[in-house]
């Protein structure tokens, strides 16, 4: 991990796991912005000392639903911490993550990522969706799927370069799926699919990672690999927000937990892990 120090934290688009083979390429990637950005050239630098994620009185609904999925949620996540969003199904964990990445427009309240609205910093946020969001039958291989994590840095018209390919190769190896790189994505097991999706999030090189149930219904090997990678991300200075309903590993794997119930912040039960304050 000796190479992390030279670029980790210095740049929002820094590479998660530079390996000796790709260091020169990684450095160049880190400082690149797309010429024709998908978000239309809107771009803002991180505000110094701002929280990685600051959500204030957020209210949001799914289209066509009567009750808001989130109602008056506020939290502040300091940079470089691991935070668990805890709650039963339907409590609003996924909705909160979706609102942060801009998949759901808030009705009221604000969301700031490193001090900026989401639209100004797509490249600084990576989102790991639940597996069902993707058409796994589509004729695309694992390498290409992971490469789509680089698209936010490429923008319109630009094709992935040698550095992008090297980075993707390294990340696939990191997650132990390099031998599957030419497989069509539908031919993977559930755990392998989950690792491929995490690999894509890593390829984005974002400072803030939002993971929606990354360990749901995966095999033991995947669980171990993903947990190790998340730990290493944290050690390299990333902020990681994870939706989970696994209460057992909270105190060992997270710095703080935020409890949700029916779209509102819930008071944790007595003895429950809370960690550092999220205010």
């Amino acid at each position, binding site marked *: 991990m000796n190479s992390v120090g030279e670029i980790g934290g210095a740049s929002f688009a820094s590479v998660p796991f530079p390996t000796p083979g790709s260091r020169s390429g990684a450095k160049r990637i880190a400082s690149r912005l797309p010429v024709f*950005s*998908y*978000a*239309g050239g809107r771009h803002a630098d991180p505000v110094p000392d701002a929280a990685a994620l600051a959500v204030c009185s957020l209210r949001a609904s799914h*289209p*066509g639903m009567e009750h808001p999925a989130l109602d008056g949620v506020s939290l502040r996540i300091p940079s470089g911490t691991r935070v668990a969003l805890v709650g039963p199904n339907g409590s609003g964990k996924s909705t909160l993550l979706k609102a942060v*990445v*801009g*998949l759901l427009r808030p009705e009221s309240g604000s969301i700031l990522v490193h001090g900026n609205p989401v*639209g100004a910093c*797509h*490249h600084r*946020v990576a*989102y790991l*969706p639940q597996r069902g*969001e*993707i*058409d796994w039958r*589509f*004729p*695309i*291989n694992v390498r*290409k799927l992971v490469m*789509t994590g680089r*698209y*936010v840095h*490429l923008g*319109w*018209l630009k*094709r992935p370069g040698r550095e992008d390919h090297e980075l993707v190769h390294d990340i696939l190896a990191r997650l132990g799926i390099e031998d599957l790189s030419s497989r*069509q994505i539908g031919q993977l097991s559930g755990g392998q699919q989950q690792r491929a999706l995490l690999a*894509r999030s890593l390829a*984005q090189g974002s400072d803030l990672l939002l993971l929606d149930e990354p360990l749901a219904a995966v095999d033991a090997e995947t669980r171990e690999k993903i947990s190790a990678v998340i730990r290493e991300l944290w050690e390299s200075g990333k902020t990681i927000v994870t939706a989970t309903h696994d209460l057992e590993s909270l105190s060992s794997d997270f710095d703080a937990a935020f409890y949700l119930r029916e779209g509102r912040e819930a008071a944790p039960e007595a003895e429950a892990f809370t960690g550092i304050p999220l205010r």
Partner: protein
Amino acid sequence: MSWLTGPLQYSFMQTGAVAAVLIGATCAILGVYVVLRGMAFMGDALSHTVLPGLVAAYLLGVNLLGGAIVAGVATALGVGWLSRRQSLREDTAIGITFTGMFALGVLLMSTVSSFRDFTHMLFGNILGVTSGDLIAISILAALVLLCLFLFHKELELTSFDPTHAEVIGLRADRVRYGLLILLALTVVVGIQAVGVVLISALLITPAATASLLTKSLPRMMLLSAAFASASGLAGLYASYYLNVSSGAAIVLSCTALFIAVSILGSLPTPKATG
């Protein structure tokens, strides 16, 4: 081989052959996206809705392709707009637009005394392609293929993972509008060969055949283009020698290829060693 080369001494056969390959390749390559994104019904609808545009242009004495492009693009945008707020399901929006537009086309046709003039619009006539038509077809085909090449990565991503596209700021709905416009242009290109009624076959069948054979998108596109071009030429020759409808012959060639590949694919294959 003279049966193959002989007819090519006629310029209408040369023009027809070039047109068949161009049209086949364009429809089939775009058709891969149509099949993978489940837009077959949309393709079928778009092709029918260019009819009023064609007939109106004919009645007004303006360029037919222009009329078709306007009608096709208007439909593409109209359906997208109707189903935008999810108060109407998209297939319902398509059904309403498509039948309404086609009926309008038929109504306009019935005002003209010689109904026969329109049979080439409905069913195509690859032998009737003029050199002027060929230039228009080439320009449109080049435009569609260039767009598919330049925006491949966005089309691919929004096809299998629109969520990730939105997360990185790429608006999947706008990419979809773009694809619908390309689809409208492609339909217009294909009308010369197989007509409005059968054009969706050229979009769907070769792509579906290719999808049975490979799990790689670029290879699927190449195979699809090859199947459609071959079917186009087969239809052209069938039309020349047997004096049958060229559009129907082209589509039936596509269908025959699909059936052949399906049957070959369902046969038990000898296990590969290792």
